């Protein structure tokens, strides 16, 4: 009898342990470029180690749409997605719906880039864990700079001049669809990152300063916007006003542009076996506004967060800790050129061999400009939307830069009326 009870108990224990352990976790990975594939390999490795299954939920390529989708899901309290890949500027917006990871991750984040950890916090609590870091970079065609005997541009004026020279030269040789410089100009979050780089490189501030004051209407910012508006239709195709990352990369990787502003993900693709510009590409920090300006790349990057409505929070948190751990970040750096957020990996020999440029990026990340997401909190999306719309109007010559920034200043102060939170 007791044997029978014991075997029952054992069977029940086995059943209980498997049902408690073998769960299905849904994760939302971005599908930009190679991201989906690399993400799949990572979660599959975790699934094999733990015996759980992981489902990847595809999300829109445009960051603005992805955020809207997440907001709708979370506002409805839906537990369909357990682990969210979120942008560094979303922590404040989504914070209410995310699980506080402070107790689980506090020890681990000590090794991460401090700027990235800062973006993961809301009111001092850790709501996400940094996954990879991003910053705007300048991509250039080594072969064309050699051909026209020009150095890598250090200021925007240099870049404009070099782009014009190469474009004229290439067009004379019959390549009528050749352009000097491509970037992201569609009215979306990507334009905010591009425009912030121009303005910060001229020392024109970051739209809203750390104290929450609106600082956008200043002569430096106007100068920066004038420079950028001057590119459209001359060294940059007018279509850039509707380009996101992938359209800009499409033009550059087809060999039809001398320079491109993009995130680091474009490196692995430009160097891929089917790329027409393999081994002809170099990267550098984005140019300075002038001799007294600074190199400024907007800090981007992605964090992993666990939904408060997840039914398997423990397993989901474990997946987040695995994916953000040193081993997986190293694999992603080697195979997908995703920049680790763990500082020690920047001196790792394997990563340096696969992606020689990654070592130089520590400098870019420490100089990166953060968007005013923390200080504007829940209102960040409105601030960014007003900003990219004002910039878009200046770029499409619907408003003078000074006029556009004057209106923006008034609109931002109106949003701030009752304080940012």
């Amino acid at each position, binding site marked *: 009898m007791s044997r029978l009870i014991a075997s029952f108990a054992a069977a029940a224990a086995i059943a209980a342990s498997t049902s408690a352990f073998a769960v299905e976790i849904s994760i939302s990975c971005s599908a930009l470029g190679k991201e989906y594939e690399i993400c799949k390999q990572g979660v599959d490795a975790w699934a094999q180690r733990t015996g759980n299954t992981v489902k990847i939920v595809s999300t829109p390529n*445009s960051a*603005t749409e992805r*955020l*809207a989708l997440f*907001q*709708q899901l979370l*506002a409805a309290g839906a537990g369909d997605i357990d682990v969210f890949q979120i942008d560094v500027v979303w922590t404040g*917006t989504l914070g*209410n*719906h995310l699980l506080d990871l402070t107790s689980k991750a506090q020890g681990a984040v000590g090794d991460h880039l401090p700027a990235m950890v800062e973006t993961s916090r809301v009111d001092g609590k850790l709501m996400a864990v940094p996954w990879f870091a991003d910053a705007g970079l300048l991509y250039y065609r080594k072969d064309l700079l050699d051909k026209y005997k020009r150095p890598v541009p250090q200021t925007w004026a240099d870049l404009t001049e070099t782009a014009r020279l190469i474009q004229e030269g290439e067009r004379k040789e019959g390549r009528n*669809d050749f352009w000097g410089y491509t970037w992201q*100009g*569609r*009215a*979306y979050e990507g334009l905010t990152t591009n425009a912030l780089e121009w303005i910060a490189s001229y020392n024109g501030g970051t739209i809203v300063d750390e104290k929450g004051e609106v600082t956008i209407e200043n002569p430096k910012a106007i100068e920066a916007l004038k420079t950028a508006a001057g590119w459209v239709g001359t060294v940059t*195709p*007018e*279509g*850039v*006003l*509707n*380009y996101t990352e992938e*359209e800009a990369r*499409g*033009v550059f990787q*087809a060999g*039809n542009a001398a320079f491109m502003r993009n995130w680091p993900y474009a490196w692995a693709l430009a160097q891929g076996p089917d790329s027409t510009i393999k081994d002809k590409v170099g990267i550098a920090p984005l140019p300075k506004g002038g001799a007294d300006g600074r190199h400024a790349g907007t800090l981007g990057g992605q964090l992993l967060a666990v939904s408060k409505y997840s039914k398997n929070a423990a397993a989901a948190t474990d997946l987040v800790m695995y994916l953000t751990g040193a081993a997986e970040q190293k694999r992603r750096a080697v195979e997908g050129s995703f920049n680790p957020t763990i500082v020690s990996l920047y001196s790792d020999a394997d990563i340096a061999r696969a992606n020689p440029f990654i070592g130089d990026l520590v400098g870019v990340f420490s100089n990166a400009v953060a968007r005013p997401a923390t200080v504007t909190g*829940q209102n960040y*999306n*409105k601030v960014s*939307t007003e900003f990219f*719309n004002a910039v*878009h*109007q200046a770029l*499409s010559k*619907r408003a003078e830069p000074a006029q556009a920034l004057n209106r923006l200043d008034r609109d931002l102060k*109106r949003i701030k*009326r009752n304080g940012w939170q």
Partner: protein
Amino acid sequence: MSGAVAQVGVPARHQAQGRRSSLTRSRIRAAWLFIAPSLIVLALIAGWPLVRTIWFSFTDADLNNLSDYDFIGFENYLANYDGEWLGLLTEPDWWHSVWNTVWFTLVSVSLETVLGIVVALILNAAFPGRGLMRAVILIPWAIPTIVSAKMWNWMLHDQFGVINDMLLRIGLIAAPITWTANPDTALWTAVMVDVWKHTSFMALLILAALQMLPQDIYEAAKVDGVSPIRVFLRVTLPLIKPALLVAVIFRSLDALRVFDLIYVLTSNSKDTASMSVYARQQLVDFQEVGLGSAASTLIFLIIALLVVITLAAGRVRLGEDPR
């Protein structure tokens, strides 16, 4: 449904004051019983969301936390803060989106009506393969808008697009046109795609009206030697006018709600935003359920107003009709 009630109700009213016969009463009861399911379904799927949206438009609800909000009266529409008027009715972006939508509707529906009549007249003539032709022209209308908008987006791409390539090859343009990026052409591009999609729908409705026309009028006109253009203006057009009016109202209602086409082609750009794009941005991107609901309520009122105007105008002109 209300017709059924009225029909049953009419004899009841003819009865002597006061008491209705038990038969009539049971018939009325039966009628209500039959229409009750549809009334309940309508109230649930159309009435409840509408009432809820209007209610939210008087609150400061936030998408982040929908259970906690306060009643704030008309503040989302118009409010005075320290001498400064704020609210949707003072928002230039909102009025710009209203203007975009009205312009889009006027231009696209006018073009669709004219082209629809032309296509319908062609399809009304007897020619071999007419049946096949009638089916084929419906294809653009059958493709979901989101799919055709994406498709057009690629075809109109300034660097890789097939449209620019074709125009360049035949020498019509010297440099690629940035159809969707330039605010001046973006709304026209949206109109073009909309016309491509909906002309066939318009043509089909008009064709149905054409097929109902009595042939003897045309024979009489032929005998009298009236020119075809006069026949069209004096006979065909007045006779298909009621059907045409219904088709125009249908299309206008659709065009006033335009969202997917403009959103796919130009995303959230202020220059081309329609009313629905504006309302979605407030509701979803900015999580302002209150303000977004106020915008949705205004859309509802604007559309209702325009329909009333169109119907009234149509009735006046029909009244002047010598028939």
